[in-house]
């Protein structure tokens, strides 16, 4: 075997090992979380702190993203459908796309960037400065103190943020419908209410739950696995955001497909 192909082989082997370690490591992390949840109740003060940091502090970013998304979609659908006289269908299309796809996906991607990176870098820094060791040495569990509050806060905050995105994005769509497409605001509003139903809401909220899990688990896993100093904190942060974003985008397809099958079946 030539040196070049040997190096490529070693590189592939290393990548596979890294992937297996990630899946195995996150599996163990989730198992430890369940074990700790059974052993001791969640500390509400830590959970509330995290909901504030993850949920409340993300609101300006999420609102800005939502309103821009809604406006752009309304504009694009309006421009496209105008040629065929299909402007009245804009509210329905915008609402459906936001509720099912864009709301959960864009909100989760923004949260992966803000919160996933924050979790990984914060925990990674705590590892480097031996604060995680100190938590263990003082007879307490980093899973209980650090990981569980962050995962639960993501699971609680993301569906709520997605609900807010749904409302704000539709309001953005309505504004463009009125100013750019000359649609009556009341007509737009009633059309959204009349055509949106539970079949649109449930997949979006389910996605928010799953994506919240992806964001928090990858942030915690990569943060806790920082070993060799501050340089690795940056690497862990990047990995957490990349893995969370990819999981969201790939996961979105599979969840959409799942609900598509369920809807057909029902």
């Amino acid at each position, binding site marked *: 075997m030539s040196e070049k192909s040997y190096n490529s082989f070693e590189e592939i082997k290393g990548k596979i090992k890294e992937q297996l370690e990630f899946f195995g490591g996150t599996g163990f992390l989730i198992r430890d979380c369940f074990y700790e949840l059974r052993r001791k109740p969640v500390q509400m003060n830590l959970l509330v702190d995290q909901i504030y940091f993850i949920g409340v502090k993300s609101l300006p970013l999420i609102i800005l993203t939502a309103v821009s998304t809604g406006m752009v979609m309304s504009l694009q659908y309006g421009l496209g459908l105008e040629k065929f006289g299909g402007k009245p269908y804009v509210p329905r299309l915008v609402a459906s796309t936001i509720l099912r796809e864009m709301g959960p996906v864009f909100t989760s991607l923004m949260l992966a960037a803000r919160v996933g990176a924050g979790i990984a870098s914060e925990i990674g820094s705590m590892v480097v400065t*031996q*604060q995680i*060791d*100190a938590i*263990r*040495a*003082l007879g*307490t*569990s980093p899973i209980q103190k650090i990981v569980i509050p962050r995962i639960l806060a993501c699971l609680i905050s993301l569906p709520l943020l997605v609900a807010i995105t749904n409302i704000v994005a539709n309001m953005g769509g309505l504004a463009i419908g009125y100013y750019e497409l000359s649609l009556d605001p009341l007509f737009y509003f009633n059309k959204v209410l009349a055509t949106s139903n539970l079949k649109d809401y449930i997949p979006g909220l389910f996605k928010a739950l799953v994506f919240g899990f992806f964001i928090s688990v990858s942030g915690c896993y990569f943060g806790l696995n920082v070993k060799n100093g501050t340089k690795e904190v940056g690497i862990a942060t990047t990995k957490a955001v990349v893995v969370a974003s990819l999981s969201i985008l790939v996961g979105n397809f599979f969840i959409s497909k799942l609900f598509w099958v369920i809807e057909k079946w029902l």
Partner: protein
Amino acid sequence: MALIEIKNFRKSFGSKAVHENVSFYVKRGECLGLVGGSGCGKSVLLRSLIGLEKPDSGNIEIDGQDITFMSETELIPIRKKVAYAFQGGALFDSSSVYENLAYPLREHTLLTESQIADKIKKQLTEFGLADALQLFPSELSGGMQKRVGLARAMMLDPEVILYDEPTAGLDPYNTKKIQELILRLKNKGVTSILVTHDMPTAIAVCDKFAFLKNKTIAEQGTIEQLKEKKDSLIHQFIEGNLL
């Protein structure tokens, strides 16, 4: 009877062996100085004593209990009686000194908040840090951080304290302060292991020494025994003739 006993301890990271066949013990109330060149694995050994590192093989016994392969939950009672003073203090940087010291009390005792406050004020006064109560770790000097770390480790009145380089990087004044603290705790009957390069402090506070070299304990004995033996490894180490 030994309070801490290590038998045939072996530890490696990947293919690199750090310790092989390490054995020593510390009796109740004794202070052991664990010395050796930089990077010989003193801190790894110390961390293993409260389960922060798991050995590949061998046994670690604390007060007759084999803790070698205990789970994190099983280690909780051990960690309540064996405190670890980290080299840099390892203080929670988003919490004040008060919150750092309150942490172990809130977690492991049923004290009320006013009792916790009283205990913290008393502890900080004893450690010469009465004015630091509301400060954050970033507002403290290196010496103060070490002392707060030590004060936090002492909050649960542990039977054993493991000191990881408590005087590293400190000026003579703070070194003396830490030395006095260690001696005061020792006089209270606290068993301890001191990892250090600071030989004057080690000689001042330790009853016996273990010299770590070539992955194992190359020499151990009381300070009197080592003083008599002029060609001992520790003598050579102190005089800078040995790494």
